[in-house]
Structure formats: C-alpha cells, structure tokens
C-alpha cells in the first residue's frame, strides 16, 4: 500500500480524517487525498460556525483543480489552522499533521457512520 493510513482516526468516503478527543473532533485530509490532489496551492479555511455531517466544510485548490472538503461530523467549527493559509503545501508534506479545523461535535453517534483505519484501508484499496 503506497498510501499512509493513520491508526486511531476515523475516515470518510471523501477522504477526510477525524480525530476525536473528548467532545472535540480535529479534521484533516488523508494521505490518499493529498496524493490525488497533487500540489496543494490554496486553501479557503472553514468559517467558524455550524456545519453538518457530509455538508461542505471548505474548499481546497491544487494547481490543477478546485475540490470541496466535507464535514465528517455535524457541529460547530471552533478553531481553524491559520498556518495553512501561508503553507497549504504542508498538507502534501504530512496530511495527518496539517489539520484543517476543530469541530465541537454535536452528536457523537454520527461517528459510527465513519470508517475505521482498517475499513478505510480496504476502501482505498478498492479505489486503486
């Protein structure tokens, strides 16, 4: 497997990861997503406020194209990683360190709809 999939995180079919600590979820993009996008040149960070699971969170741009990032869970965006504005390429360098935002999770039950690292590995393999 050429893609790194970090244990202990939850994953979406759109290739976002979610790390859950208490009631707060940290959101980022998987290594697979970063590789598929290629050189990431710009990120429009989420605006603080309410988001819905599966709804659009923000936009990211590679040299080639614009892509949407979706919220893995519903809740309220409480913090964004402003450092990404100046260095969006850090997502290519380490997509698990370059988090995008933190969400105050509204309903923990929604996490059950996400994939575990093992399930996500199988999912990525089915795509390649």
């Amino acid at each position, binding site marked *: 497997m050429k893609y790194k999939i970090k244990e202990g995180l939850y994953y979406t079919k759109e290739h976002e990861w979610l790390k859950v600590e208490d009631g707060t979820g940290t959101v980022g993009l998987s290594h697979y997503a970063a590789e598929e996008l*290629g*050189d990431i040149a*710009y990120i429009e960070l989420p605006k603080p406020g309410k988001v819905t699971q599966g709804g659009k969170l923000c936009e990211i741009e590679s*040299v*080639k194209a*614009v892509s949407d990032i979706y919220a893995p869970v519903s809740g309220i965006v409480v913090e964004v990683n402003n450092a990404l504005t100046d260095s969006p390429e850090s997502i*290519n360098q380490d997509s698990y360190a370059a988090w995008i935002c933190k969400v105050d999770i509204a309903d923990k039950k929604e996490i059950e709809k996400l994939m575990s690292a093992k399930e996500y590995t199988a999912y990525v393999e089915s795509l390649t």
Partner: protein
Amino acid sequence: MKKLKLYDWHKAHAKLGEYAGWHMPLWYSSVKDEHLAVRNNVGLFDVSHMTEIYVGGDDALEFLQYVATADVSVPPPISATYTIFLNERGGIKDEGLIYNRGDKYMIVCDAVAMEKLYSWLMTLKGAASLAGDLDVTIVNKTFDISLLSVQGPGAHALAEQLFSINIQDLWWFQCRETEYKGEPILLSKSGYTGENGFELFVEIDPLALWKDLLELGAVPCGLATRDTTRIEAGYTLYGHETLEKQVLSQPYDEYTPLDAGFHLWEFSPIKWEKDFIGKEALEIQKKEGIDRHLIYLELAERGIPREGYTIAKDGISIGEVTSGTQSVITGKGIAIGYSSEGKPGESVEIIIRGEPKKATVVTPPFYDPKKYGAFREV
C-alpha cells in the same frame, strides 16, 4: 481510451489522468518540482497525444494556403509556421504548426481537435475536388508518431550530446532531419513552455530514447506542468483561448483570431494578402470593430483564478477567464482571459467564489524574462 506508446512506463511512474481521450501522465513527482526543472534545468514531456496530419500531393501547398490563415510557403530548410484554421464564420477550428518537410507538409496541433480537424480537411478536400482536379493526400499520422519535448535552459546540452546538433544555431521552429540509433527522426526547435528547447518526432518505439534523455538529466514532466508552464509563458491553448463553438447562442459568440489579437503580432499568423477560409468574416469584423481582447492578469491578493471566472471592473463584468493557475515562479494567481477593457498596468477584479479579488493587467510572460525563459540574460 487511447494509450501513448510509453503508457506502461508512465503508469509505473506517474499519476495518470484523462485528456482528450488519452491516458496521460499528469505528474511524476510534483508539479512544482517538474515546473522548476523546466525553468532551471531541463524537463522532458511525452506529448505524443498531439495530432500529426500529413498533407501531400502536387496541390498540397495550394490547399493549405486556403485552409490556413498563415503563409505556409516557407522554403526549406525544413521549418514550421504557426497558423490558425478558421471556419467560414472566422471562428477558430484549431491552431497549430505546419512543417514543410520537403515532400509533404505536417500539421501538428493539440489532441482535442484531432478528429474535427481531420474531417474538416477531408470535407474541404472533397469540396475543392468538385471544382476541379486536386492532387492532395491527407493522412492522420497521430498514432504512428511519438513526440517528445525537451524544455529548459539545459536542453541544448542534450541535443548536442545525443544528436550533435547545436540548437542555438537554429531559429525558432527550424528543424533538422537526424538519426537516433540508425532510425530517422525529426528534431524541431520548438516547445510550449517559454523556454529554449527542442521536440523530437519519432516513429520508432520511443522508450530507449526516453530513457536516454532521462539518463542525461532530463526530469520527466506531466501534463499538469505543461499547463502551468504554458500559462506562465502566456501561450494560448485550443479549448480555452481558442475555441470553436458548435452552436452560436448569439452572433459573434465565438472568439476569433482578431479577438485574440493574432493580427497584431510582428510575425502574424494572419496573411491578409492571400485568400483563406474565414477571411471574409474577419474583414467584416475588422471593419465593424473588435470589442474584446486577450488579457493577462496577475492577482494582487491570494487566490487562484480558474476558467470561467468573471473579470470585472468596479463591480461590472468586463470579461471572462479562459485559463488560470498559480505561478510556480512568482507564487501569484495568474490568468489569461478575454475582456472588453484593461490595459497593462490597470487594475481589475477577478470574482472568486463571489468575492472580487484585485488583479493587475500585465504583459506576458508572467515570469521575469530577464531571469527565466528563452530570452533570459545568462
């Protein structure tokens, strides 16, 4: 999907994507690294998806003079002429190069319009034949010919080593018939990146040649870098700045070479002194006035312009972006588009996600030509 002869090599080394029905390498390492290789050293592109059409026969020149806007009667030694192919409305069928190879002409243009251009030539040939005897043969050679493009300040050293040809002695678009391992190949001083470089037309399996070029230090570059380098150089691309529409929703809803300003070039591809398809329409447009032009924009704020974004001035739409990316050299968002106003130095806006972002009208290329490109001060 169509496959390049080097498909297996690309599949093993690159991220692949679709372009004009071809499986194409998009990037091998990263667009940034590949782009910098072209600007600072030497990059190698497999652009074998490009269309090659041979036009031969006693009346080939007469025929091409009628279908192409440029004067293609350049004498040997072999060289190429940049031209536009128009429909009767003056709309752009395609743009490309016509090489005079002595016994025949070779049209080279983008892959998007291959079928369309070929059938257009066949239709015109058929129509011309009705009017009298016409000795013209048209052969689509796209699937026989591979095209490798070597680009960057280090390109000349590779031409020297592999072919003992000094490309500094060639003028732009000039060619040499040469050999590679006993097989004939055509070397053309040309490219699409803004850099010095050469392109190789080969009918043999290009794998050994590809590997030799890599061995000599060329960095493999994908289609994404072809796009970022050509936009940075300010070059137009069929399907973007030049595009024929199937149906016009209103008169003049199609960019012509006059909108693109091709008639203003020092060596213009529009030869008014001869007859060609679409000339009448262009003359009418010229008389009535040209109300838009190609515009080159550099964003003053963070963001990346994309095709289809609106260009505005004081909140009023004045045009549209046809190509956009982030310049690897300057880090700024850059765009080519059509606009009814905007002279170099003036400020306009590009509407990105509903928000106007400040942009400056500039003169291409988007890089400093003293530091990068074919005319850099060494």
